[in-house]
């Protein structure tokens, strides 16, 4: 650089900064896509890493279960409360059950599970791999005849892809149950009507599209978090930065990809 930053006008600096950010983002996207291809090709090569996959499924699935279930229950409950208040104004309170069931299965179950897993699992993946990177453990893997992508990333991506829909099945169930309890026991809705309305408008498609979304969220969260862990550098500070980026990027990707999947699938 020949001219110093002080000589530039504010507008030039702004455009430059924007360009730098966009450029960095495109680089990250490219790297994440490359990582995805490496994960896919490493799945078919021996050894199978099945033990690692099971270990990660436990980490992603069982350990995230409580937080996902609590979130889903309260989401269902507040949804019932809000829609009851709204529907009362035009006397349609019998439809609360349908609204809760559809919103939870199509949208809120997968998205909230995705966001919670981004925070909990994304952070721990980025921090763990980031620490391994800065302490040269990832280099050590390579010198010990082990491909780090195959050994570390592939099991995490596979586990998250499989386990997230399972989490969402439970989240859907508890969200609906939470809505039922609020409607029936607090708002005094008729339990039979509520259950009938829940069944009446809920299609199988609503549930499985939600599960497909959850699966994609799982893949994205694991890929993004592993990517930021892998590129961490500069000691503890670098690991902290990688973790923050992983959580922010994977939460954003959950919401962005959710929009596009919804627009394609329904």
């Amino acid at each position, binding site marked *: 650089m020949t001219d110093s930053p002080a000589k530039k006008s504010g507008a030039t600096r702004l455009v430059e900064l924007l360009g730098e950010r966009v450029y960095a983002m495109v680089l990250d996207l490219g790297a994440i896509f490359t990582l995805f291809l490496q994960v896919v090709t490493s799945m078919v090569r021996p*050894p199978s890493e099945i033990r690692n996959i099971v270990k990660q499924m436990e980490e992603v699935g069982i350990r995230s279960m409580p937080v996902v279930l609590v979130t889903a229950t309260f989401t269902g409950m507040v949804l019932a409360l809000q829609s009851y208040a709204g529907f009362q104004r035009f006397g349609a309170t019998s439809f609360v059950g349908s609204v809760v069931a559809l919103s939870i299965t199509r949208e809120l179950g997968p998205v909230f599970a995705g966001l919670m897993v981004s925070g909990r699992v994304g952070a721990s993946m980025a921090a763990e791999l980031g620490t391994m990177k800065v302490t040269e453990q990832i280099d*050590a*893997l390579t*010198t*010990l005849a082990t491909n780090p992508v195959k050994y570390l990333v592939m099991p995490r991506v596979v586990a998250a892809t499989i386990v997230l829909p399972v989490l969402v099945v439970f989240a859907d169930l508890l969200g609906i149950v939470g809505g039922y309890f609020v409607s029936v026991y607090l708002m005094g809705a008729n339990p039979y009507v509520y259950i009938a309305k829940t069944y009446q408008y809920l299609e199988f498609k609503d549930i499985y599209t939600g599960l497909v979304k959850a699966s994609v969220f799982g893949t994205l969260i694991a890929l993004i978090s592993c990517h930021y862990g892998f590129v961490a550098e500069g000691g503890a500070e670098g690991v902290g930065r990688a973790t923050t980026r992983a959580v922010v990027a994977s939460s954003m990707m959950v919401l962005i990809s959710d929009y596009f999947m919804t627009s394609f699938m329904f």
Partner: protein
Amino acid sequence: MIAITGLTKHFGKKMVLDGLDLTVPKGKNTVVIGGSGTGKSVLIKCAVGLLRPDAGEIRIDGQDIIRMDERELVRVRRRFGMLFQGAALFDSMDVGENVAFVLRRLKMYPERQIGEVVEEKLSMVGLRDIQRLMPAELSGGMKKRVGLARAIASEPDILLYDEPTTGLDPIMADVINDLIISLRETLGVTSITITHDMASAYKIADHIAMLYKGKIIEVGTPEQIRTTSNPVVAQFVQGRAHGPITDESEEFVRFVSR
């Protein structure tokens, strides 16, 4: 034998290795000395294929590893063992699992023999009955020794040591020096050590090479290096604060602050 010619590596605009040439004879320990941040680690990471250089050749028994694809590299890397600066033990595994890692990955022994083999490797570095400990429970010197046991587990014929004595007390540093010498004698391995610890370099080296400004500026036996006529090498090995290496940066500092 490892023959490195014209090795060049940039990071961004910074030239780290600038056409470096170095020959590492078979069965000998070649020590590369040089200041912090002069690219010593980059050199051995290129040698083991962890970093891809921009240009140059690294021939291991005649095969150029820079032109290899990832699959061929994996095969060549089995000939290497590397001891990392901070030992780089996998902290989610205990000592036994760390040492056995490569044995299990490559299925070199049946599972029931692994315990025995690991104990044998650990005894080669003077440790025993620590297989169940976690890396966090070990002292710095023990970590390095476990790291060494892990590096030699697959019986490599080339060993790379990244600052093996840095951060250790003088006694433990000498224990590591003795281990490096005895491994060379008992296993007949070719090794490259990078260090800035001159006491260690004089003790373990068959040849010493000085890395300065991205090039090897002098190679010789420890005696030749000790009595060198090159002022840059002399300043480094005698550890003087004033000399050609620091003069240049002082001039630079004066130039900048003017």
